């Protein structure tokens, strides 16, 4: 994993949240602007059918919803290279397909999005 440490944004489905606070605070750590966060919220609703706001306490989301949120925040960040660990196993088939479709769309605007289930 060390080989990715200085080149990739590394996200781990086994620990999807950084803050356990509000969505707004989590998004700050990904350096997301409010308008980008708005897109994340819209996509989150489309994928999970759950309404969230910047003030939502994200520690209250289900495990799979946390992973969806982690993926959305990562692909909307400015990181060109992303390594996603243990993300697939937390998602049901419907959510997994939706997330994979989205990742494919973002592949073009990123140098690399790697996915690895350890």
């Amino acid at each position, binding site marked *: 994993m060390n080989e990715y440490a200085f080149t990739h944004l590394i996200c781990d489905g086994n620990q999807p949240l950084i803050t356990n606070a509000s969505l707004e605070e989590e998004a700050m750590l990904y350096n997301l602007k409010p308008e980008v966060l708005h897109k994340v919220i819209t996509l989150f609703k489309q994928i*999970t059918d*759950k309404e969230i706001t910047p003030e939502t306490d994200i520690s209250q989301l289900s495990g*799979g919803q946390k992973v969806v949120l982690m993926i959305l925040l990562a692909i909307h960040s400015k990181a060109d290279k992303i390594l996603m660990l243990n993300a697939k196993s937390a998602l049901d088939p419907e959510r997994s397909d939706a997330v994979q479709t989205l990742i494919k769309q973002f592949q073009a605007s990123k140098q690399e999005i790697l996915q690895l289930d350890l």
Partner: protein
Amino acid sequence: MMWKIAASVYEVWKNFNLEVKEEFALQTGGTYHLTGANGAGKTSFLKQILIPQLQSQPDQQYILYLEQQTQNQLDAVKAYSALQKTAVEINDFEQMLNYLLELYQNALTDAFRPLLIISDENPYSEKLALWLEKLNRGDYCLIYVSHGICAFDQSSNLRNISLTLEKAGQANLTLL
């Protein structure tokens, strides 16, 4: 030995109810696969209904709950072990399982205690399966949540517990 889950409508969080239409029982020797979409309430069922009900029953069962977000549990077990008299190195899931197995075996020295293992979307099912083999007893009860292929899918005495979202704020739980 069996543990009954009473039929009822349980409020798992505000504006979200989970209905168990018919009472059902979990039995030692059984493996139960809890299925349901993300956000259907699987973890809430485990933490807020199943575990409290098991704890309220008279048997002094040993409940081993393996969390969904494994890193948090690993850190917690590591912190717990650091407070004990004998230091144990816990750096990964396998070491954590071995430590928990040791705790369980120590707990058996006084009297027999039935074992319930609850594995909530734990990505290390193969390691857990090996651990259970090492445990060398067939009278435990295993409840697991998994969306993909899992080491327990071919278990004998496997039954499904299905959790389905019926409408907004309402999910139903059924033993199939």
